[in-house]
């Protein structure tokens, strides 16, 4: 916990450099557990965070794991990923918890629409019981 982490404790310049001064990714589709896969190798002159991400994602790696390894807040990592996705250097495997999009919610209704599919939960149960 006490290790250096760019988000709060130290060099704000690093955050600025990594993001080009942006505070939000324009592509807001990344989840904490979206799995990122590199589609190419780093090239000379590429910003170091981009290059590191490409090396780390030769096998699928979740956004939150990249954030932990790069010691950057999740939202900053999403900005870098957004750039890599735009240029086709990575692909993103987004989480799926239901077969169908969630039902529209009426005002005041209990938001139970987010319940995952029973079939996905059954897979999870099998996996947990086999641990």
């Amino acid at each position, binding site marked *: 916990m006490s290790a250096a982490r760019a988000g709060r404790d130290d060099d704000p310049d690093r955050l600025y450099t990594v993001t080009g001064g942006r505070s939000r990714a324009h592509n807001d589709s990344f989840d*904490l557990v979206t799995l990122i896969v590199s589609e190419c190798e780093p090239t000379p002159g590429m910003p170091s965070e981009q290059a590191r991400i490409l090396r780390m994602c030769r096998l699928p790696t979740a956004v939150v*794991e990249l954030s*932990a390894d790069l010691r950057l807040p*999740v*939202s900053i990592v999403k900005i870098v990923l957004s750039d890599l996705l735009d240029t086709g250097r990575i692909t993103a495997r987004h*989480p799926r*918890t239901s077969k169908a999009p969630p039902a529209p919610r009426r005002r005041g209704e209990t938001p139970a629409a987010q*319940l995952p599919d*029973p079939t996905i939960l059954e897979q999870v149960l099998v996996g*947990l019981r086999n641990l």
Partner: protein
Amino acid sequence: MDSAISESVAAAPAERKPLSSAADNGLKIVVVGGFGVGKTTLVRSVSDIRPLNTEETMTQAGADIDDLSAVRSKTTTTVAFDFGRISLNEETVLYLFGAPGQQRFWFLWDRLFAGTLGAVVLVDTRRLDESWYAIDRLEHHGTPFVVARNDFGSDTYTSEQVREALDLDPEVPLVSCDARSRESAKHVLITLVEHLHRLSSARELTS
């Protein structure tokens, strides 16, 4: 390599078991509880990897905030959290997040934990009052949960007393656990997913 290597460096990607190349679906379960209640211990007990730590920041009072009364002005909200993971099969990987239950954390709930399968509220029966807020917030967000009482060996309350103190809905499962035990931690997760399955199946029948 330096023998005095720190724990955080030792958890570098090279030493961590990577996911399968076929992994394509990440799922989330959140363990919420007060400081020192055993969240990280529970995550560690079942995780395939040594728990990692990271943080998220929110730099302005934006639309993500669902409780404006608690925000006096534009501020930077930072929450640290740790996590582990379990590969359930070649394609599916379950991420377990240990999250602090304090107030500022909930400002970031939607951004971090939208789409989470469900939550475990880990409680210490000596400090049940610390769990009230977490339970209230989970209900507010419509996130299904179970309550797990971590057994610290001095626990003399009955389940009924704990239920009453937490004002738990009768359908919310309450289990005892030892967060240090892999089997016990597994049991907590299975209890949660069975609960979710009941809710989800009931919903499919009625829709």
